[in-house]
């Protein structure tokens, strides 16, 4: 789950990290009011959960409350990378001397959180990592020892910070590290972390992503979920415990297990078809969940054929078949459905599905994918 800039900054502030004064609003009038209260120049920033809002014009400077209102009006009407801008953050503009990068994420290779810093702040850090890896300094954080003074000293020295900023930098890095751990984050970035003209450090932009698996124990953070982050279909899938990603094609896919689902999509594509979605019903899927999954797939008007691939382990094939039967009870799927089932209670499942109209049962994944592709009509 992604947090907005203003939400991320609110968390950082709780950990003692200096952020610009500011407020969030959804009207130009209030934007003017905020600018009035802050006094002087302000930045008006679109709050959307995609990158690249700066290039898209989603950040504007304003020298007066009236300019702030104008900027807010312009930004609140925008759609950035498909997402409408619902709110803007109005905050005091900073006098920037240097822009740094400071970020934390989980390094899967070593199973630890890694803190990264670069003197090349304010830009796409992944590009820096790619083009100039020597410009990124990093330290791996022991989960039991935390971010330590010697980590801060190393990074501060790497960044070439003057000695006067080592202690504040250490405070920010330790705060960010604590925020990461205590929020169950998967990413926490300050980019840019700026050195202002008067020689202090300030978190000018911030981004925190949360580990979805940890949201049940982070109720306060889970409540920050932004409805505009996901489509209604995605929200429905999430609530049903389904992993669902809409794609561009015509073949609706329902598979148990993420790996098998990816391999199924790969097979569809390799055989000339285009998957309409990724949909993993998970382990031990019961009939009800299968039904929701099918509803989701069939609600996509582009779908011309459905491919169901289930390998029974925890998931019992008869439960899946029963879900399919219930989803179709009293109504026709409208498109051809190809089913392939192997594993626990496979025979019972075949019996149930054999009685359904429009459902074709296949033996192998390849045969099933081939049939689905042909039924969907290649290239349509």
């Amino acid at each position, binding site marked *: 789950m992604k947090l907005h800039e203003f939400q991320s900054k609110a968390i950082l502030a709780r950990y003692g990290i200096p952020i610009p004064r500011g407020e969030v609003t959804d009207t130009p009038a209030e934007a003017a009011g905020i600018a009035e209260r802050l006094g002087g120049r302000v930045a008006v920033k679109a709050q959307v959960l995609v990158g690249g809002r700066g290039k898209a014009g989603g950040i504007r400077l304003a020298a007066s409350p009236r300019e702030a209102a104008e900027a807010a009006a312009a930004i609140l009407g925008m759609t950035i990378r498909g997402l409408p801008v619902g709110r803007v953050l109005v905050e005091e503009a900073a006098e920037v001397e240097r822009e740094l990068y400071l970020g934390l994420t*989980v390094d*899967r290779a070593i*199973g630890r959180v890694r803190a990264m810093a670069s003197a090349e702040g304010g830009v796409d850090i992944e590009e820096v990592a790619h083009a100039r890896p020597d410009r990124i300094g990093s330290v791996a954080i022991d989960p039991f020892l935390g971010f330590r003074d010697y980590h801060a000293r190393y990074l501060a020295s790497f960044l070439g910070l003057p000695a006067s900023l080592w202690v504040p930098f250490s405070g920010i890095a330790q705060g960010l590290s604590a925020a990461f751990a205590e929020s169950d984050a998967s990413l926490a970035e300050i980019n840019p972390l700026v050195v202002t003209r008067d020689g202090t450090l300030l978190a000018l932009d911030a981004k925190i992503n949360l580990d979805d*698996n940890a949201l049940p124990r982070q109720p306060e953070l889970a409540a920050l979920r932004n409805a505009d982050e996901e489509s209604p279909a995605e929200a429905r899938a999430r609530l049903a415990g389904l992993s669902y990603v809409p794609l561009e094609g015509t073949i609706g896919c329902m598979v148990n*297990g993420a*790996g098998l689902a990816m391999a199924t999509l790969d097979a569809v594509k390799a055989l000339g078809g285009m998957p309409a979605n990724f949909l993993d019903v998970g382990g031990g899927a019961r009939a009800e969940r299968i039904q929701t999954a099918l509803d989701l797939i069939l609600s996509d008007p582009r779908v011309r054929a459905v491919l169901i691939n289930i390998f029974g382990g925890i998931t019992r094939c008869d439960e899946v078949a029963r879900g399919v039967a219930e989803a179709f009870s009293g109504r026709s799927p409208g498109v051809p459905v190809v089913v392939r089932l192997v594993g626990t209670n496979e025979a019972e499942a075949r019996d149930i599905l054999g009685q359904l109209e429009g459902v074709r049962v296949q033996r192998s994944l390849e045969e099933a994918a081939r049939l689905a592709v042909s039924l969907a009509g290649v290239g349509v």
Partner: protein
Amino acid sequence: MAILVDHHTRLVVQGITGREGTFHTQQMLAYGTQVVAGVTPGKGGQQVHGVPVFDTVRQAVAETGANASIIFVPARGAADAILEAADAEVALVVCISEGVPTLDMVRVRRALRGSGTRLVGPNCPGVITPGVAKVGIMPGHIHVPGPVGVVSRSGTLTYEVVYALTQAGIGQSTCVGIGGDPVLGTGFVDVLELFEDDPQTEVVVLIGEIGGSDEERAATFIHSRMRKPVVAFVAGRSAPAGKRMGHAGAIIDGGAGTAEGKMEALRAAGVAVAEMLGEIPGLVRERLGQPGGPNS
């Protein structure tokens, strides 16, 4: 021989009185696994399918000589269950639970470093040595004993591959599902190392997927340290960048961890990489019975 699980394996089931724990205890017993104990706090003294239940893993180990554990507790308690098993010096812990917070696993992995406990998982199907013992949730009947070691980040995709091998008359030494989460107890390299040293295993099948760099590290290991032939498949070639595809691990970040990149790395290490799942049995058969040699 085989790896990780054999006829010496004496299993304790953590969370044995839950729905999944009870069901799979029965399944594992039916497969022939020596399930010697179960643990559910507060239910010590009960029995599940004839298996005695204890309040703590330590008591279970003391009373029954259990040396392996499988965990079916809910995600929020999984880390503690793993730590309890490690504290009781259980040598192999297989964690089935899915949805374990990543930072819990960061802590668990750190806690286990230097201990005598190996963790497989979480969010994995477990380990099976066909015909000997099953410590997991995979459908046992699709496996047959043989010379092929299987290691995979996926669950059902592994069953698919094993099923195809069995259908083609090719048996397996041990099949290990390492799990799909970002931070795991055991990675590809750990399992490859065990297979390389296992006399029964002649060929290894590695099933990867997009995200992370475990396949790339496996490729490096295979190139520099393995003599046995490896056949690989990588799922997710059709996945769009940046979209979450079910597994938390299966995210393509900034171009790293793509299926193509992983396949390329494996090929460069001398691995036979299947384009389609269906090619795997054929690639394996070509490599069976051949003398081993360096992959470098």
